[in-house]
């Protein structure tokens, strides 16, 4: 409204405000920021709190119950058996180490691959190319997780494309197993890591880089001392995606992981096969603790604030 009068060039007085309900509400809200905050937060917090936190809390409580193996119903007597089983069982330790190793490796690979391409997109490519590259990175997201996983299965098979590519250099396909799992997962989550890093790099003003250059900073020094600290939160944001998505995956490892199983498989088997939700919930505590630990470490770097 105000914009219209200004552009017409005529000076007409701002019309007196009608005393509507909406108007009065607006005034009340302006005067009471706390009320405004409460109204704004209530819907999302009710959603997340009632749906998610309650569900999570219920699951954790279930870990303290047992299941009647004959009828498959849950007996609500308190016990720490499931937790103790998970903490002491060598199976769970082996699988946890394996899973965390895979997730870390996937995250590391994704960051290392994402950095150069995101940098090229944000700082080197022309606007036109920038647009094309963003599309090129986003497009594979739509090809369906399962289809891509099966495509990697085909690429990594005996006499597959991978072997055909590396054979001249004396290499051979890693076959199905953990290396294949790491490659496939890194591939699947790569766009989710490139995008935040790209967005982070875009926010680094070019003038800053030039200033560093003018002050005699070498390219490498500029990258390490100026750019990296600024995009660190973006890297963390990307790593949360790749780390947590890998941590809970059980489908890719089934397709290309050979005979290996990860934490997701154990949870899945206990829910699906054994119908033992309490034990599954106890196993689920492992990734929950790991993720909380990860977020706590990350929080100390201040990255969550800037996520």
């Amino acid at each position: 409204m105000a914009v219209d009068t200004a552009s017409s060039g005529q000076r007409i007085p701002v019309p007196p405000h009608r005393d509507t309900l909406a108007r009065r509400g607006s005034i009340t809200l302006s005067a009471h920021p706390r009320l405004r905050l409460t109204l704004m937060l209530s819907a999302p917090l009710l959603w997340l709190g009632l749906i998610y936190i309650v569900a999570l809390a219920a699951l954790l409580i279930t870990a303290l119950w047992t299941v009647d193996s004959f009828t498959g119903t849950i007996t609500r007597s308190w016990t720490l058996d499931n937790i103790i089983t998970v903490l002491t069982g060598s199976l769970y330790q082996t699988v946890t180490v394996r899973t965390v190793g895979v997730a870390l490796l996937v995250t590391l690979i994704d960051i290392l691959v994402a950095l150069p391409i995101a940098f090229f997109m944000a700082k080197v490519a022309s606007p036109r190319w920038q647009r094309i590259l963003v599309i090129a990175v986003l497009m594979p997201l739509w090809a369906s997780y399962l289809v891509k996983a099966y495509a990697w299965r085909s690429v990594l098979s005996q006499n597959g494309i991978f072997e055909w590519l590396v054979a001249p250099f004396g290499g051979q396909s890693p076959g199905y197993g953990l290396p294949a799992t790491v490659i496939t997962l890194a591939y699947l989550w790569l766009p989710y890591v490139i995008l935040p890093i790209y967005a982070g790099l875009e926010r680094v003003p070019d003038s800053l880089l030039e200033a560093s250059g003018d002050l005699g900073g070498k390219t490498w020094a500029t990258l390490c001392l100026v750019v990296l600290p600024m995009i660190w939160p973006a890297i963390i944001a990307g790593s949360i995606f790749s780390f947590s998505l890998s941590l809970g995956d059980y489908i890719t490892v089934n397709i290309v992981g050979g005979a290996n199983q990860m934490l997701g498989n154990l949870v899945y088997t206990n829910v699906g096969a054994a119908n033992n939700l309490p034990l599954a919930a106890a196993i689920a505590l492992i990734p929950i603790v790991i993720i909380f630990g990860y977020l706590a470490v990350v929080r100390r770097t201040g990255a969550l604030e800037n996520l």
Partner: protein
Amino acid sequence: MTHLSARRTRIRSSILTGLAIASVALLTACGTGGDTGTGGAERSEAPTELAENEDTVSILAWPGYVEDGGNDPSVDWVSAFEEETGCMVTSKTYGTSDEAFNLMKTGEYDVVAASGDASLRLVAAGDVAPVNTDLIPNYEGIYDFLKMQDWNSVDGVAYGIPHGYGANLLMYNTDAVTPAPTSWDVVFDESSQYAGKVTAYDSPIYIADAAMYLMTHQPDLGIENPYSLDETQLAAAVDLLKAQRENIGEYWSDYLKSIQAFETGDTVVGTTWQVIRNSLAEGTPAEVVLPEEGVTGWSDTWMVASGAQSPNCAYAWLNYIASPEANAQATEYFGEAPSNQGACDFTVNPDQCEIFHAGDEEYASQIWYWSTPIEDCLDGRTDVKCTDYSDWTTAWQEIKG
């Protein structure tokens, strides 16, 4: 509760604390866990007569059992049923017996096609009801050797209609595995020859394959029925499978994986289904054999949920799918032997029944059909407790490691 309070201190937020308290209050008030209303082991009664059909029926089945043309217009036996009975079908498919067992707990399905490793569990959990076979005219045409077996009846009460059956055969790459194997030892004691290229079915029920092998090769263990193992016998089977694990390239549960692996040569020997052999590309050097120790196998059963919302439509489906035409269509598409002796006249491939040994009692007698291991030994022993399916599941996870 320790976790909740630990979480609470960590979060340190007024808002979240409020929510957490609210949720605990809610939890104590409403409770959580397994009781979905269908639980409990109470036996429901089979109906003595049928009423008018309802409007819909909800079916849970293996992929390829309930086809309405949606995936391939030429593969459709549901539309005819809908026209005939007025029961509109909604269906959900599952990938493993365990998933089926779990899905039935939701109480959303009227009918389930269950393999033997799920059926007894479903009965025990009270999720399925006895079936009055008198109300199903097409039951007459079913092969007698499939009726009233361990996996589809309890204490002489029928719990469903046999659908189709098949064997878990041994497949081998004819170039890599010579001479042609006649025993399962190529995947057990001799498997190191094919290290990294052996496959096995990815399910706790595969333990029975090892137990069956031990029946011949370690008779002093005294295994009478591979689904009825006491603790020592299970431990022996687990040891065998742990040794096998060293040489496993991958386990399979979806057959695309198995087909691919045999075609590319990533896998050269292991369990398979006849349909997988038939689906291999022409020229793939692979053959199947029924080894001398015998085989495990499946015989699937159509069962009715104890809380079925459309029991009449459910019976209509059981009758329809047991008819020679529908039974032929469904079992041929899936790749297994039909249960109705009249079905062989309706298969598209005139040799279908021969390939899958339908009605061949001699062949069928060598199959140990999947049954759910339970505490009461299936082989009739009363002096020991047998290991149950949850023990098998734990063992299976340990084996995979």
